[in-house]
């Protein structure tokens, strides 16, 4: 049986890890390579690096960063942020990343997912979806693009299903309503997407304490949970979180019962 994955997410701006609240109010959280290596040693199952600037020059910096991370980190890591072409994916994967995540570019050009999956294999392709609860209907969510700044007409659940058909190997599902709030994940959203697709779904946005991860796995049916604030600023360690989950019967790797 697969273990549930705990995945720290490192938002990168100007070669530093930052973390905001609902995509705004950024705060410095350290050096990406150091933090990545620390998480790997502590027993994180995977890492995600997101280039939140997503410009041509920041993409170059990210490729250099990926090379440094790959020299020091021996767990899988995903890189995302502003990726638009198969060539850009190739550069990032060649620098040592294991997966690339695509968000805006996939909405604008869904064929990109298909092209990428055929070239690199589905297991490399993460479809990142930024979801915002619909004001009209509480059980519907709207896909937002361009770092959440632009709402689209895409429905999140329908887009997730379409993404799977096109070849995405995994979905990174971020709730814009809960991101950075430390008040818990949007588990209605997580459950709705998890029930609709057959590929793994990573729940993201809102973890403030270990209970929240438990709820995302049990109530949200998530295969993996993304975390940031909860561990970046030293409130909890990966070990503490895994012990909490393991003690409650969730299968996790590196679980130490004592």
């Amino acid at each position, binding site marked *: 049986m*697969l273990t549930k994955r705990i995945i720290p997410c490192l938002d990168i701006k100007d070669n530093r890890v930052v973390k905001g609240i609902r995509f705004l109010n950024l705060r410095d959280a350290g050096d990406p390579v150091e933090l990545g290596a620390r998480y790997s040693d502590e027993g994180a199952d995977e890492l995600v690096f997101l280039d939140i600037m997503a410009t041509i020059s920041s993409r170059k910096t990210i490729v250099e960063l990926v090379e440094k991370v790959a020299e020091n980190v021996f*767990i899988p890591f995903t890189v995302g942020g502003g990726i638009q072409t198969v060539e850009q994916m190739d550069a990032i994967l060649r620098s040592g990343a*294991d997966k690339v995540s695509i968000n805006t570019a996939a909405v604008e050009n869904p064929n990109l997912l298909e092209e990428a999956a055929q070239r690199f294999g589905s297991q490399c392709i993460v479809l990142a979806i930024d979801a915002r609860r619909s004001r009209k209907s509480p059980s519907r969510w709207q896909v937002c693009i361009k770092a959440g700044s632009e709402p689209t007409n895409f429905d999140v659940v329908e887009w997730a299903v379409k993404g799977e058909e096109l070849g995405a190997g995994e979905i990174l599902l971020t709730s814009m309503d809960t991101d950075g709030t430390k008040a818990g994940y949007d588990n209605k959203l997580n459950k709705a997407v998890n029930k609709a697709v057959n590929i793994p779904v990573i729940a993201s946005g809102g973890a403030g304490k270990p209970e929240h991860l438990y709820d995302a796995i049990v109530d949200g049916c998530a295969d993996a949970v993304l975390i940031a604030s909860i561990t970046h600023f030293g409130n909890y360690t990966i070990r503490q979180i895994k012990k909490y989950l393991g003690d409650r019967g969730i299968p996790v790797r590196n679980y130490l019962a004592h």
Partner: protein
Amino acid sequence: MCNAFCHIGCDVKLSLEAKTIENAAGLVLPGVAAFGYAISALGSLAELIKEVALSGKPLLGICVGYQMLFEQSSEYGQHKGLGLIRGNIVPIPAGRRIPHMGWNLVKLPEDMDLFSTLEKEKHFYFAHSFYADITDNQTKIAYTDYGFDLPASVQKTNIYGVQFHPEKSGKAGLKVLQNFAKICTGENN
């Protein structure tokens, strides 16, 4: 992959050159790609790798590189593999999450030297949608449980393969690579 070998103190070279391949103590066939793309990228080196492996030099296939050791694959069309081990690459049966993505527990048989000095079972990182249906009876196989016994690693004399990613499986993964390096230099005997 090179980073991981460097990390454990191995002299490793990423090469497409026949001479380098012939002179190496052992070969690693990595792979992050769809099967068809990977096997066509190998081109004329496929024959050389086969020859070198059949001459007795240790060969380690990883993920798609492992899948290429077998006869054929049905990932995005039918593709011929190296045919070093009997069996085919087929889709993971429906009824579970696909890809098989994440850390799964592998039972490590004592007689597989790739896993020497590791415990009886260890978590390794997997990321794949196809798996090797092994029909070769001259193999040793390590399995993981994914609702069925999924082969996680195979050995046929000097030919080794792992479906998981040792270079991404933390300390246990690095140990597997170290063991392979020892097999190459003959230190394990």
